[in-house]
């Protein structure tokens, strides 16, 4: 197992060496980059909005139900919800969800190209297939996932606000007061910075599993599943390390 881990790490490192080279044709790279932003990022906006809105609302309801006590200040619900949404939900949990949606998409796309010899066709033409296929995906995700995370923060808080307003579970003024209490701008930057790291993990791990897929459609499916599992584990480990580094 250790040997296999070392082998995979070596293979991943060599792949990244091939990926991080100057694109052979900048105009083609930019076109791919825009297309990947559209395909991987813009197409994920709706799922991010929906999930964030409802989870934001649920967080507020749960906190209200569980910590409601005469000795707790009324702004606690708003304050705690904001911290949860900004610090962990929008950055980490949303990236775990995106690892499933975007990561599996990347792994299956590249994996299918591998098993149908499209990657070999690129190589025969003299194209650096790793750079051509993977670099635009990494660049687009590292640019756009922070945007999605910012959307998620906003929608999560709107969800919480909406449940207070429409569900009548607590006065909106108290929730608003909590949202504004002890606000640290650094937390937003911390969450955005974390998401950049997670975007790198999602794009490179999924690309790695896709690029080295062998066999047929079953193997592509397996590569896609493995990529989601591995990126989720790595995101959680990176979350712990980054939290210790930046907040500790």
């Amino acid at each position: 197992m250790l040997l296999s881990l070392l082998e995979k790490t070596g293979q991943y490192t060599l792949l990244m060496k091939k990926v991080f080279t100057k694109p052979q044709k900048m105009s083609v790279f930019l076109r791919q980059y825009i297309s990947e932003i559209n395909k991987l990022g813009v197409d994920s906006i709706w799922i991010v909005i929906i999930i964030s809105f409802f989870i934001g609302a649920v967080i507020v309801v749960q906190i209200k139900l569980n910590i409601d006590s005469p000795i707790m200040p009324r702004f606690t619900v708003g304050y705690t919800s904001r911290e949860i949404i900004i610090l962990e939900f929008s950055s980490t949990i949303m990236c775990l969800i995106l690892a499933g949606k975007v990561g599996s998409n990347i792994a299956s796309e590249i994996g299918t190209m591998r098993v149908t010899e499209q990657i070999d066709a690129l190589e025969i033409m003299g194209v650096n297939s790793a750079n051509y296929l993977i670099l635009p995906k990494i660049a687009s995700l590292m640019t756009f996932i922070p945007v999605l995370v910012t959307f998620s923060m906003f929608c999560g808080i709107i969800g919480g606000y909406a449940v207070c307003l429409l569900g009548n579970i607590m006065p909106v003024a108290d929730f608003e007061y909590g949202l504004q209490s002890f606000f640290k701008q650094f937390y937003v930057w911390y969450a955005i910075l974390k998401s950049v790291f997670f975007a790198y993990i999602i794009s490179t791990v999924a690309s790695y599993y896709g690029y080295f897929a062998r066999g047929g459609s079953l193997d592509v499916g397996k590569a896609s599943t493995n990529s989601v599992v591995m990126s989720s584990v790595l995101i959680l480990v990176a979350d712990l390390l980054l939290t210790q580094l930046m907040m500790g």
Partner: protein
Amino acid sequence: MIEIVNLKKSFDGREVLKGIDIVFEEGKTNLIIGRSGSGKTVLLKNLIGLMRPTEGQILYDGRDLTKMSGKDLKELRKEMGMLFQGSALFDAMTVFENVYFPLEMFSPLSKKEKVKRAQFCLDRVNLSESGHLYPSEISGGMMKRAAIARAISLNPKYLYCDEPNSGLDPQTSLVIDDLIHDITKEYSMTTIINTHDMNSVMNIGERIFFIKEGNLEWSGTNKEIMSSTNEALNDFVFASDLFKKVKEAEMAEESSNTKS
């Protein structure tokens, strides 16, 4: 000219190519034939540099592919065109974009000239009306023709075809064979085809190389196949009744000619 010298390739200690020596002549249609698992595809993959041999040399006009750096190999590959078994057209691109792609990446021509060249290649394979379609929207034969157009877009010196007729009906197979043969002559390319298809061997094979269990068992022209006494080759070529009858008829004709 492509020269293979003592080419060996092993996988986990299992020798698939056992020291092959072949010379592929320039401007000719060379066919590699052999049973499934004989090492044909491995040989082709070594020839185009997708696999590195365990031992031996692959000389392209004296340049040894096995000793080339990644950069030199990339340069050499610009002289190659390849038709894959499954066509390997890029799913995300239209047929026209597939043909235009190598030109966009590597051609020094102006954009207008590149478009003209891509259109010319599509015309050459009779696909000028299908440029706007995606690979999933065209038939297997059209996919092969689009892949040929893509392979010749940069005017390569060498054309490789891996099982160009697999999955095609006999009539479409003939069209593809003729197209490959005509293009080879038109552009004076050195074409190397991996095939099982005996119709292709008889139609377009100028030089035939028969591979058996990783060794070059026999080589010659398509005319020489008929009179060959190599048992393994005869077992392979005349496995079908049709070709057996063709051979018997040819031999009968030959003997009657000799008598008269």
